[in-house]
């Protein structure tokens, strides 16, 4: 029994548990299918949470563990492709886990009252250098 539980713990630690896929919340009339296509076409991306609100597109992505060294260039690559698809939206793409976390919080949140304020806040901390 003890050995079995140790084995289960080790297996749990080794495999880990993480979500996969792309989650999109769209509060605008924009077409969201090409967002999913752009993000899913990149093989480095493991998880993405996207929020479309008014003229903002906020995307938090998580890349595969061994692609983490290039996560910045992956994010800029996706941003460029999205800008081509949606020229009239303000696009923010980041591979930082903080952006992913905050975007998820916004997606879960009910009501769109202070979305704009929160999005501005996320964008400002994303720009911070030190």
């Amino acid at each position, binding site marked *: 029994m003890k050995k079995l539980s140790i084995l289960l713990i080790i297996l749990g630690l080794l495999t880990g548990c993480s979500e996969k896929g792309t989650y999109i919340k769209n509060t605008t009339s924009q077409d969201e299918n090409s967002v999913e296509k752009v993000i899913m076409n990149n093989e480095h991306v493991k998880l993405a949470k996207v929020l479309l609100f008014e003229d903002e597109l906020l995307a938090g992505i998580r890349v595969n563990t061994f692609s983490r060294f290039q996560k910045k260039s992956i994010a800029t690559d996706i941003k460029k492709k999205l800008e081509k698809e949606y020229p009239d939206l303000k696009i923010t793409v980041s591979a*930082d886990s*903080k952006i992913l*976390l905050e975007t998820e919080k916004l997606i879960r949140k009910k009501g769109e009252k202070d979305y704009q304020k929160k999005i501005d*806040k996320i964008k400002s*901390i994303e720009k*911070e*250098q*030190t």
Partner: protein
Amino acid sequence: MQQEKYAQIEKELSPKPPILKNVIRAFLTGGLICLVGQFIALFYITYFDFTERTASNPTVATMIFIAMLLTGFGLYKKISQFGGAGAAVPITGFGNAVVSAAIEHKSEGYVLGVGGNMFKLAGSVILFGVFSAFVVALIKTILVKFGVVSW
């Protein structure tokens, strides 16, 4: 001739250090310290407005603070005796070097004792750290100027 002979005799007589054991211990200790640091960074990312990039500064400060307390209570000594390089290489080892020197020379007074000796060990870390950062920045600046890499 005499010197060579002495070196040979010394080599034969001195006990062999248990390298593999030391390496494993250093790996585990250093890994545990970094795990604690990762948890602290995650804490700052989750509960404060820090991103992965900006969370490193408060994390380092917290780790040094913890190392300072452990040094003062005499616990870091035990960790270093077990872990060796695993406890000396992370930033906590740097904090330990500063604080232990300060404690050691406290009896000589605050200015000439603590102030003068605090960076006795850590001073070389700061000097060569700043110098190597300067060299790396110089190389990167040149590479950016020639267009090999970008900032």
